[in-house]
């Protein structure tokens, strides 16, 4: 009997590789697709050149007064003059190094976590979670270690946006996980009912209402003379609000875990918490990375709502600059700048989530 000889591999036909083949297959493979391609090219021709013309070619970049702008294109001078306020709000200029240091520390802590073969990752992560918030709090608020106290009413700009977004995310994820686990605790009906009630209450209310309640209504219910910091109230409101959304995202992931995983964990003798932490959550959270990041991105943009309770985040400080009488008529530049900044952060988060998904993929690549 002759041994089985597999046929040698053949190269693919030449019409299926290369740039021209790609264009033909993907852009002009049918009359409809061809027409849509041409239409898309026409729309790009209509919109992109004028935009580039306005934003780059005819734009004014240097100067310090509104008279320096020709008005033919964008007046980026306006952004340049106000940049400090857009970043730091009214944080005293002499103290702004503290904000920079806080952000630099965050980056310095986070970067090593991206290095693939960094052995102390878990330890660094734990230290960061425990130590960083304390350090950041003392640095930013001050009033101790010889640092001047900076009231939160002076915080603003992108810095305030980042504070609300980061605190919201860091608090919402663990809270959301606990709520999701609670909602699935079939053998603890009271706990389950509490979690369901919490989630449905917060999810059923607009964030604006939550912020209004926290800033306007809450003081009525507190005893006389007792007051919380306005920013703190907003932070708590945002964190609880987002945790309800996060809980539902995480619950979706928990439902995606096959029953066999729980049974295997049970059969090996893992108790509830061990099997949840070691086996169920790593898989469930991986499943819902897109949903978690989606919630984070929404949260990042929702931070702009704090404007209505008188906190001046990035968008708020741009709007207040728009109403400066020396700089009337440049609000488009302000909004474009705000859009670009928000986009950079949101796109960064989106890319990170895709990178993370690819990294955590453990099966066959298809």
């Amino acid at each position: 009997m002759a041994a089985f000889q597999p046929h040698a591999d053949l190269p693919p036909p030449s019409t299926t590789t290369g740039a021209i083949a790609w264009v033909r297959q993907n852009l002009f493979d049918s009359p409809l697709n061809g027409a849509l391609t041409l239409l898309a090219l026409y729309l790009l021709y209509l919109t992109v050149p004028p935009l580039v013309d306005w934003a780059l070619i005819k734009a004014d970049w240097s100067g310090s007064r509104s008279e320096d702008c020709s008005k033919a294109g964008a007046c980026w001078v306006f952004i340049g003059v106000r940049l400090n306020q857009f970043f730091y709000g009214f944080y005293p200029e002499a103290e702004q190094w503290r904000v920079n240091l806080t952000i630099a520390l965050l980056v310095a802590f986070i970067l090593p976590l991206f290095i693939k073969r960094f052995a102390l990752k878990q330890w660094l992560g734990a230290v960061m979670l425990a130590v960083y918030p304390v350090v950041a709090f003392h640095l930013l608020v001050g009033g101790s270690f010889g640092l001047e106290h900076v009231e939160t009413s002076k915080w603003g700009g992108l810095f305030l946006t980042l504070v609300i977004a980061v605190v919201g995310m860091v608090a919402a994820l663990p809270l959301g996980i606990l709520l999701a686990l609670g909602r699935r605790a079939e053998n603890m009906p009271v706990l389950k009912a509490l979690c369901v009630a919490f989630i449905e209450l917060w999810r059923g209310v607009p964030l604006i209402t939550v912020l209004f309640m926290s800033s306007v209504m809450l003081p009525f219910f507190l005893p006389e003379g007792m007051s919380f910091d306005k920013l703190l109230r907003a932070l708590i409101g945002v964190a609880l609000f987002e945790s309800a959304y996060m809980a539902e995202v995480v619950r979706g992931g928990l439902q995606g875990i096959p029953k066999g995983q729980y049974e295997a964990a049970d059969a090996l003798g893992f108790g509830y918490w061990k099997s949840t932490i070691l086996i169920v959550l790593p898989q469930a959270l991986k499943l819902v990375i897109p949903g978690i990041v989606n919630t984070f991105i929404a949260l990042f943009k929702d931070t702009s709502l704090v404007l209505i309770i008188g906190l001046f985040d990035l968008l708020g400080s741009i709007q207040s600059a728009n109403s400066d009488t020396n700089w009337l008529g440049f609000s488009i530049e302000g909004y474009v700048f705000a859009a670009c900044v928000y986009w950079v952060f949101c796109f960064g988060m989106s890319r990170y989530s895709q990178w993370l998904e690819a990294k955590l993929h453990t099966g066959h690549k298809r």
Partner: protein
Amino acid sequence: MIASQDAAPAAPASAGTTDAMIELQGVHKWYDKFHVLKDINLRVGKGERIVICGPSGSGKSTMIRCINRLEEHQRGRIVVAGVELTSDVKNIEKVRCEVGMVFQHFNLFPHLTVLENCALAPMWVRKIPRKEAEDSAMQYLERVRIPEQARKYPGQLSGGQQQRVAIARSLCMCPKVMLFDEPTSALDPEMIKEVLDVMVGLAESGMTMLCVTHEMGFAKTVADRVIFMDGGEIIEENEPGAFFSSPQQDRTKLFLSQILEH
């Protein structure tokens, strides 16, 4: 052999008899109103190898899943390695440490490598240091003849390889009993043998085994006793020679003629 359904659960005063590894006395179970297990009495000695067969829906999987409390029984008593299964969580965890289980669909943890799958339970349940747990995991992976796959993820292995890893994972806990719930039913025919070979090796080493399977060749060569279940009852049990050559009950005969036809 056929049990009366209204018999009160037998509850002798003496807990677990001397060398019985598993003891089921008058076990009943219901799913809602459906009576899945009807007065099951079974005693498995140390080192005994038992094959359980029967048509689907006969309660055989449910019965072995009661032994490590993946399913809860509602009447009767189950004693495993001297520990009675009650709703006491500590007892349940104690029993689960002594009872390994292999599933039809392997149920490996897809986010962990093969080695981590094997070392996880010894590290976190038995509190064995990582190094030691991984060394012993490697030994068991060698025993199931798959040590070269230790750093891969389950999703990168074939079904037969995954099932062998699942067996190694259970063995890493040094169980006194191994339960197999149709371990080869989800495998391609060419992979069944590699899994059965591992199971035969395990049987020869003296492990107490309960195996739900339709592999009659395995039953003939390995089992000390074959149990036939139907409709939630144990219909017949015998040593394999007599079970296959001269079954006593009509239902057993029908079942055997159906599965041995091809």
